[in-house]
């Protein structure tokens, strides 16, 4: 991710009054995380596992604080059990931005067969949990999609996931 989508995401998060940024740092979103860490508007929490990231973000969200969990598709799968509990079980609005590793355009050095697994499993997994998600691959729609997804998330008491790809990520 280069500077422009990182800037657009930060602007959208601020417009949504999201000031708690929870992440397990990963390569595609590191520039975003670094920009957030440098911005005093945000409290940035680095978690040591994705399960914990989902749970921490859920705890903040249920208590009324606007928060986002930034991870990758592999991390989303790793945090899947926590997501199942916070979503279908409790109905807590956990807002998630995830890099869509394995989608077309990923030349980041991980073997293609490994990346393909993420692509093959990621979306069916979210569908199985009935968690609303959308793929965002265009910079021009990025801010609006973040605003719309976060609105749906906090008003429907369900997680929402945006899978970042294309010119947003690569």
């Amino acid at each position: 991710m280069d500077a422009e989508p990182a800037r657009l995401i930060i602007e959208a998060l601020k417009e949504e009054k999201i000031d708690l940024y929870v992440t397990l740092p990963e390569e595609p979103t590191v520039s975003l995380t670094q920009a957030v860490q440098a911005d005093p508007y945000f409290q940035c929490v680095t978690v040591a596992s994705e399960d914990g990231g989902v749970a921490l973000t859920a705890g903040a969200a249920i208590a009324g604080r606007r928060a986002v969990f930034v991870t990758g598709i592999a991390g989303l799968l790793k945090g899947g059990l926590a997501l199942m509990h916070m979503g279908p079980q409790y109905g807590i609005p956990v807002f998630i931005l995830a890099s869509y590793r394995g989608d077309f355009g990923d030349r980041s050095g991980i073997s293609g067969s490994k990346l393909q697994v993420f692509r093959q499993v990621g979306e069916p997994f979210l569908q199985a949990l009935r968690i609303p998600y959308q793929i965002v691959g265009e910079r021009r729609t990025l801010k609006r999609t973040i605003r719309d997804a976060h609105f749906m998330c906090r008003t429907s008491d369900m997680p929402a996931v945006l899978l970042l790809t294309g010119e947003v990520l690569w």
Partner: protein
Amino acid sequence: MKHSACMKLLSDLIDGETLTITNLTTNARMWSALHGERPSFYGLNMGLCLPFAVGVALAFPKRRVVAIDGDGSLIIETSSLITAADVRPANLTAVVFDNGVYAGMGETATARRTDLAKMAEGAGIAHTATLRTMEEYEKALRAALAAQEFRFLVAKVERDDTLPFTGSYIKRSERGMKESFVDALKRLPDYPGER
């Protein structure tokens, strides 16, 4: 120490302003009987109690939050110790009731040779303690609940053969439990969200 006696003392020391978060089974069942209508989120699945409580503590930085966890739950997600140590919310107290076994399963041991307080210390939590007597427990608990720093307590407890008090948490839907918790939070003057 009897698990139920430790829970009862915790309940006696916590006021109605404190937010509590519990893990599954024994803790949730006893706490729902003891804690009544005070704001509490019950029964988080294995490993999720401590990180969830950290999130609640970040949303209510001026209000005491207590995580009531168990040894089996904690060891399934020990990375949460690292996160909690890093964030170290000053308003958070974690109490782990360590009975050495998984729920009421008899001799299915959780960790036979592991020191949870040392693990927490190694993760970077500055104030940890293992408590083996009621005197130690009460002293450490009172201090932790009054402290303006994150403290992590491990209470070594005996399994109660029969729980002297069990609440209705298990009979309520989890969505209903969550809604009750959210409604209670929204009535608090420092609730940070939209009412």
